[in-house]
Every structure is written in structure tokens, then in C-alpha cells.
């Protein structure tokens, strides 16, 4: 069978997506059954003519299945280019769903007619994302497969721990919390720093406890509520938090900026606990969490969206979740519990053998090989013919046509009913 794998050959602006696409490709390439993969470059930077040529060239291969493994451009563009004779050959389409699914209701709404009478599958990266997507698509078309982690890039290595600690000036006795990712309003990095410094001030975390922050600041703000930020705004607001505390405490918050993919494993290995209180509305998964676990780094996370799926029960305390709640303007997490758990994490750090086991157990779920097997099963699964998207999706699609901020109450600038109806499952 010939399967078209559709993605942009150009790197995404979202670094995590670039990794996800690369690892998904590797996962699909493991399929040893009678499958021939045809790689199709569908990119936003292509002209209309280039995309037409791409489609024509792809269908010379008698494709029977299409799998969209990238988040942009939306599949509607590609599917609209298919001629009836090309469309007839297709038996099934699989969509890998990314966090921007909720930004594209009007495109999905318009895609419906192109999917009728085809077998369609939506592959979500986490269980909560699947529950969200099930509000919009037929339930029996939704599957779950985590975005895979490359075990050649992320693994536990005691040697790296010692080497990296020496390089960045951490002693063996130091305890390091590590956050990797964007420093952003919805990622709650400011709140994380605030809690850490509060604990320091209250002497519940000692001098040898550090918070390492690896990532760059962004200005995304809270776009759903039209709260965009200016360049430097989130940085300055974070700095205002730092200025409230004594210098000797602030020294224990270490900003290392962006680190390249190759160095991430060093930091995961040299740290003692990955920490993230993100409540980012489209946290469908959490690639950094997956990589941290694959490197044997236990995690302290919010119980929000995709983060909830990261549970390694074989090792006590390896994955700890803080409850969250949807508010009028913000998703919030239980700060008191977060502080207690941070202290607990410090007092009960995982020994080396447990971390090694954590890495092994995490990779049993997240590795390219495991995900490849899951995708093979999804590929083989029988599914009925697609009928339609839900009325709710069409409603949101229609609202998105004329409202730039469909989840915002325009009078009070707080979240409206649509928001709660869509995102309630992420907070459960």
C-alpha cells in the first residue's frame, strides 16, 4: 500500500513541531508491513502552482492513504487541490492533531465536504486532547498516540550529570529544578519563579536549591482575550518579580537562555526535577516533559491538558500533578499545593537507580519504536466512513468567520461560554 506522508520539508517556527515531525517520520518508517511511504512537501511558503505540482507528482504514485503529520498549513488547502480522479483513489486520511486544532475551526468546517465517504482518523497526542477533539469529530475516529521521543537523543546518563554540573557550577549537593520551554504568560514561568523565591525567603528551600530556566521570553500574552504583549514586556514583568527579593536569593534563579537540542539532554541529566506550572491553553502534549522523562528526570507538573497524560506509576513520586481550575481570565493552579510539592521534591529526590528505571519505563511508552507500533495499529484499525463534524464545530467555525476572538466576551473581556465548553476537559 502506498501512503502519502504530508508535511513541510521546511522547519517550523515552533521548534517542538520540528522535532515532533522528525520523530513521527522515524516512527512511520519502522512499519515493516507492506507499506511504501511517499514523502510530500506541503508548505505555507510554496506557491499555489508549486502545491499543485506537488499533488500531481504525489498521485503518480497511486496513493491510497494520506497522513498529515504537520500542524501547518491546514490540510484543507491540500485536500482542495485534489481532482476527483485523485480523490477516488484515497481510502483513508489520518490527521495528527496539534495544539492549534482549536484555532482552526473554520478550516475544519470547510474540510467536511472533502472528507465525506472517506475513512478518517484523528490521532491525538494525549488523552485530554482526545476528549477535547471528541467534542467536534465522531468519537470512533479519535485515537491516542504520544508524540515520540528519540531514545538516541534523550536517555539517562550518570556521566552527563556530573560533567554538566561541573560545567555550569553546580555541586553534587545542589538540588536543581529545571524548566525548559518558552517563558510566557500562559506558561506561568513568572509564577514559578515567584513561588520558588517565596520558598527561599521562608527558608523552606535552602541555599543549595536552584531553579534553572532554559528558554527565551515571548510576547504571546493571552491572545484569546486580546491581551497581546509587547517585546520585552514579559521579561520586564518577570524582572519586577526578581527585584522584590534579596539579591542572594535571586542568584539561585539561573537563566541560561535558549539551549540547542543537543545540549538539552545534558541539562535533563544534571537536574533533579523538571518543573512546569504551564496552563497554556493549547498544551496538547508537552514535548519537553516527554524528553525530560525519557532522560530519567522526574517531573512536577500541573494537571492541565496534555500534562495529565504523563504518569509513570512504577516509580513513586516520579510524576506529580498540581490541580488546576478554569477562571474568568486565567487558568490557575493550586499554588499552596505547588509550594508543598516543591519542598517535598527537594526532600525526596530520586536516586540514580530510580532515575534509570524512570527513563526505561518512560521510553517504553514514548520511544519512537513504541509509538511506531501504536501508529501501525491505528493504521490497521478499521473505522467507519466519515459523516460530519459536530454542530458545535460548525458553530465555532461560523463564529470564527466574523469574530477574531471567539472565546472572549467582548464587553467584559473575560472568557465566554464557548471557552468553558471547549476547555473544561483540560482542567479535569
Amino acid at each position: 500500500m502506498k501512503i502519502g506522508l504530508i508535511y513541510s520539508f521546511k522547519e517550523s517556527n515552533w521548534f517542538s513541531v520540528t522535532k515532533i515531525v522528525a520523530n513521527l517520520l522515524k516512527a512511520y518508517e519502522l512499519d515493516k508491513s507492506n507499506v511504501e511511504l511517499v514523502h510530500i512537501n506541503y508548505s505555507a511558503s510554496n506557491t499555489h502552482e508549486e502545491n499543485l505540482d506537488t499533488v500531481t507528482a504525489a498521485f503518480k504514485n497511486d496513493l491510497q492513504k494520506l497522513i498529515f503529520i504537520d500542524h501547518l498549513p491546514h490540510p484543507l488547502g491540500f485536500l482542495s487541490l485534489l481532482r476527483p480522479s485523485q480523490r477516488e483513489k484515497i481510502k483513508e486520511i489520518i490527521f495528527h492533531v496539534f495544539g492549534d486544532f482549536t484555532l482552526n475551526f473554520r478550516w475544519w468546517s470547510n474540510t467536511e465536504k472533502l472528507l465525506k465517504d472517506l475513512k478518517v482518523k484523528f490521532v491525538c497526542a494525549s488523552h485530554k486532547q482526545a476528549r477535547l477533539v471528541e467534542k467536534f469529530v465522531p468519537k470512533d475516529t479519535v485515537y491516542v498516540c504520544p508524540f515520540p521521543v528519540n531514545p538516541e537523543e534523550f536517555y539517562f546518563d550518570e556521566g552527563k550529570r556530573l560533567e554538566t554540573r561541573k560545567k555550569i557550577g553546580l555541586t553534587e549537593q545542589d538540588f536543581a529544578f529545571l524548566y525548559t520551554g518558552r517563558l510566557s504568560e500562559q506558561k506561568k514561568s513568572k509564577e514559578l519563579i515567584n513561588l520558588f523565591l517565596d520558598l527561599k525567603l521562608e527558608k523552606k528551600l535552602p541555599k543549595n536549591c536552584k531553579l534553572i530556566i532554559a528558554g527565551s521570553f515571548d510576547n504571546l500574552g493571552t491572545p484569546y482575550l486580546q491581551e497581546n504583549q509587547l517585546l520585552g514586556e514579559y521579561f520586564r514583568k518577570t524582572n519586577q518579580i526578581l527585584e522584590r527579593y534579596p539579591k542572594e536569593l535571586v542568584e539561585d534563579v539561573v537563566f541560561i537562555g535558549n539551549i540547542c537540542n543537543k545540549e538539552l539532554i545534558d541539562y535533563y541529566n544534571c537536574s533533579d526535577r523538571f518543573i512546569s506550572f504551564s496552563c497554556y491553553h493549547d498544551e496538547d502534549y508537552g514535548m519537553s516533559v516527554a524528553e525530560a522523562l525519557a532522560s530519567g528526570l522526574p517531573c512536577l507538573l500541573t494537571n492541565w491538558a496534555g500534562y495529565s497524560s504523563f504518569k509513570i506509576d512504577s516509580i513513586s513520586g516520579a510524576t506529580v500533578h498540581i490541580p488546576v481550575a478554569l477562571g474568568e481570565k486565567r487558568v490557575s493552579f493550586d499554588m499552596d499545593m505547588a509550594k508543598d510539592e516543591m519542598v517535598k521534591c527537594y526532600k525526596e529526590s530520586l536516586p540514580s537507580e530510580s532515575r534509570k528505571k524512570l527513563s526505561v519505563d518512560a521510553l517504553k511508552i514514548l520511544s519512537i519504536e513504541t509509538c511506531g507500533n501504536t501508529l501501525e495499529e491505528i493504521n490497521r484499525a478499521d473505522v467507519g466512513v466519515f459523516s460530519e463534524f459536530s454542530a458545535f464545530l460548525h458553530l465555532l467555525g461560523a463564529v470564527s468567520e466574523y469574530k477574531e476572538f471567539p472565546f472572549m466576551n467582548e464587553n467584559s473581556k473575560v472568557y465566554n461560554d464557548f471557552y468553558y465548553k471547549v476547555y473544561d476537559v483540560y482542567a479535569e
Partner: protein
Amino acid sequence: MSMLSEIKNIISNSHDEVIMAKKWNIHYRDNLYKEVYGRIWPTTHRYYFEGNPSFLTEYKNFTDMKRFPLIMLRDSFVTLSAFFLNNPKPPENFNTILLIAKEWEQLIPKTWKSNVALYSFQRPQAPKKPKKVMVLGLATSYSFWRHTVEQAFNNLEKLIPKESKKMFYLPMRERSVFGHIDEAPVYAKCMRFLLQKFGADVDILTNNNEILNVKLSKGDAYCDLSSENMLCSDNYFHHHYSSQNVGALDAKNLEPSEEDLAYPLSLYHNIHISELKSQGETFAGLLYKTKILKMNVKDWDPKYHDFLKEMIKRGELKI
């Protein structure tokens, strides 16, 4: 309280109500400069700092300015000179502190000393052999008052290592600044010298909306096509790249004094605020000339712009 202590106090108590860049309902003084700054966007794009970086044209009048305890003016020579010539001393009961770019220190009359401080930036240094160099250019007559186009490109040729990949941001439009000036001849000259000096193996970027999506990384660098920008002293691109730890090839070495206030604007670049120490020599010279020549000082008047340009070309203004 000293000037710098007062500024420190204002910054630490700042909130969005006193930051122009956070406002959606700006009552512009005039439409002309609103359009001009729009045409040279993203050079004039907004960024955040509690010092309230903004332009004179965003304040309707002094009453409007009084609403803000601190105003960091991103204006450059043309509008700043007109402002001080038309207002040689602050109005009564004017308590707002203006931050002016340090390069225009000599343009400030002594009478404004109690209401003015200076700002400058410390930007990351570029690597000696950057992989890519982004040259930021506004190919308009307002970029070549002190130096000619040819001189600017000669300087660039000396500055950029031969091995580096060159990218030029050169938006091209006939009326790229003021509607009455056809800038096409300047642009054509720039293109001629660009091709002469650097050949055809360069990337030329002209799309204002796409330029901010062009990625540079730590091993790359940027520089300005011309060190002069007579319309905007505080270029957004400098902040955009500095905050990504991309070094400036033409970054001047700042020698801050211990008394200066320093605020980080990102993990990689800072703003320094210092007290005004100069005697306003350039202002004095300019005031004298405008009186002698009975010059009508209006920042929108092309004759005034020509007057300033001539003074600079003749070396009569120390800037």
C-alpha cells in the same frame, strides 16, 4: 531628590496607564508623523519598558504629556530640534521627565536640565566572524545627511567580514517617508553600491511584514546601513535582535558610570539612564542660526529639513 532617584522611583511604581505603548486610544498631535512612522515601521514598532518609549507625535500637547511622569522619546534630530527650538524652556508646572537619546545630548537647552535625562543601550557584541549579517537599511534621504550613500557602503564594506553571508533589509517604495519626497533615486543609488560592493550573492528583503520572521541566531550579527537615522533614534530592530542574543557589528562600547541607572530589557541587553551634563552647544548654535535666518521652525516643513541638512553637510552643527 536627585533626577536619577526620581526616575528610579517612577520606574519602580510604573503601571500600564502611564505607558503610551500600552494604549489603544492615542490622540496624535498630527497625522503627518503618524504616517511617517507608519511608513518606516517596523523601525518604529512599539516595545515595552517602564520608561515609556514613545514619540512626540503621540502626545497632543503639553497637557497630554503631563499625564505621564516619564517619557522616553524615540525621536531623532528633526523632531527633537524643532521641539526644543519651539520650546526653549519647559512650560510652567511641567513635572514630566523626558529621556532623550544620549547622542542628542548637545541638542538640549540648559533650561531643560531639571526635566531631562539621557538614555543609551548596551547591546550584545557580535562574533568576530558571524555566519550571517543582516544589514538594516532605510534607503531614504533621511539616512544620508552626514555621509553619502557611497561613504555608507564603504564603511559597511570595511565592517562586514567577507566570509559572512549578507542579508539586506531594504524596503523599497517611492514615497517611503514623506509623501512629497520621491525616495526612488536614493534607493537606486543604494542598490547600485550594494551590487558594486557585495555582488549579487546577497539576500535582499523588502517585505515589512515578513522581516521580523527572518531568523537570526547567536552566531549571526546585524548592523545598520547608515549610522544616521534623522527620524528615529531608537530602532525596534536593535531590541528585536539583541533580545535574541544576536550581536551588533556596529555596537558602540558603552562606558557607563556607576551613577547611571541600568535596567535589563532582555537577558542580553540593557538600557542605561544618565544625568544630563552638557551645556547644549548644538542647541545654542541652532537657535542662533534660526533667528538670524528668520527660519520658520516646523518639524513638518521641508524647508526646515533642508536647512538642517545643509547645516550638517557644512559642518556647522556639532552632532
